[in-house]
């Protein structure tokens, strides 16, 4: 049976992991290769590097990080953040990334998904969608649920409906959707289950739920009620609050197929 995937995400800035990585037995908490390697040893199913390097000149550092990681970590690696062109994608894949995650550039340059999936195959083109609820309000009002797509790291709304955009990226050749709820992100109160389910039911490609994970139960809900194919989490793993191993054990006990 196809296992549900548990994916830790690392924010990488200028070639170093940022945001509290707090493992025991870690020689250098800022080394992305070392952290990725530890996660792989704990049976993480994939690794995501989110490159938040500010300056364009330092972009090449992520390629070195990817190269070094690919020499030591033998599970799939996705890289997102600041990818603008076919050439950016080519360089990342050549360095050893298995997938790239497109966000702002996919919205601003609609040909990019199509060109990229044609050249490199849909399997390596992940489209990241940052979604924010348009209307909160009462249960009755929420019958017309709507989420809007944001770009530039959640700073700019683009007037696109999330479900419609998700369907469009599938038509253009995306192989997977990385769906982040901006409302839930950082809260540790759990994923936006309604959003996750709505997108997962609308498309026939895998959906990775992201934003809001605080406990293994949250991951469980996203995978069951949210119908997600995979869950992405950052802080709950980084701070050693829950290890990937014990999270997977928890999920397995609840009847979810996971790779132990």
């Amino acid at each position, binding site marked *: 049976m*196809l296992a549900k995937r548990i994916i830790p995400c690392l924010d990488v800035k200028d070639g170093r992991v940022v945001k509290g990585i707090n493992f025991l037995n870690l020689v250098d908490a800022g080394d992305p290769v070392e952290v990725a390697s530890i996660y792989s040893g704990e049976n993480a199913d994939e690794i995501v590097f989110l490159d938040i390097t500010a300056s364009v000149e330092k972009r090449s550092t992520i390629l070195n990080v990817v190269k070094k990681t690919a020499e030591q970590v*033998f599970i799939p690696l996705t890289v997102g953040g600041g990818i603008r062109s076919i050439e950016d994608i080519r360089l990342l894949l050549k360095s050893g990334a298995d997938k790239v995650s497109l966000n702002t550039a996919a919205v601003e340059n609609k040909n990019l998904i199509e060109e990229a999936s044609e050249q*490199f*195959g849909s399997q390596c083109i992940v489209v990241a969608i940052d979604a924010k609820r348009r209307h909160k309000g009462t249960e009755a009002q929420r019958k017309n649920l709507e989420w809007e797509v944001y770009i530039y790291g959640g700073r700019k709304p683009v007037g696109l409906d999330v479900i419609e955009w998700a369907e469009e990226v599938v038509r253009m050749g995306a192989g*997977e959707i990385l769906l982040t709820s901006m409302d839930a992100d950082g809260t540790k109160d759990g994923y936006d289950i309604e959003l996750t389910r709505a997108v997962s039911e609308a498309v026939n490609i*895998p959906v990775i739920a992201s934003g809001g994970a605080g406990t293994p139960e949250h991951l469980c809900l996203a995978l069951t009620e949210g119908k997600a*194919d995979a869950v992405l989490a950052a802080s709950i793993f980084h701070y050693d609050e829950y290890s990937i191993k014990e999270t997977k054990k928890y999920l397995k006990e609840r009847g979810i197929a996971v790779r132990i």
Partner: protein
Amino acid sequence: MHWRERLIAIVDYGLGNLRSVSKSVEKLDAKAEVTDNPKRIEKADGIILPGVGAFHIGMQNLKRLNLLPVLHEAISKGTPFLGICLGFQILFTQSEEHGICSGMNIIKGKVKRFTHELKIPHMGWNQVRQTIDHRPRTTDLFDGVSDNSYFYFVHSYYAEPEDRNVIIAETEYGHEFTSAINKDNVWGVQFHPEKSGDIGLKVLRNFLSLC
């Protein structure tokens, strides 16, 4: 000569995750050479045909680089050969991806698209059931690998061999499909051993030890 001394050619035909494959072979201390040079492939003690992407483009590239004759010859003279993902599918007679496209016809059979309601691509970790009951030779590739171990898959098409005797492992996604084959000196796996952690490296090591 120990297998670590032998030359493993990783065929570069412009498609795929060559770096992942070469790094995993190097991790096992074997000598990997990524090449599209027919002379180097001819000399190799073992050949790996990796690949992700579209079947017809893979075949086009192999033809354009004039690699098909040397691959056929190496296989017929007994050089151990491992096809991975698209490199596994290309071993078959034909694929229905992008119309009907002919493959290498080393293994008789067809490559078909998943038509069930499940999500496509079949992406992620799935269990590989070894069909070893009547073919003990399959222990070659899966030596030391527990039955139903998880391996990493990414594909939208699956291969269906005419002769079920070549099947050494099956996996369930909507229905059972062939996830590994062996015929004489030719092995093929639909999953990515180079992306399947320690268990994947074990499969690669088993192949290398046959070279």
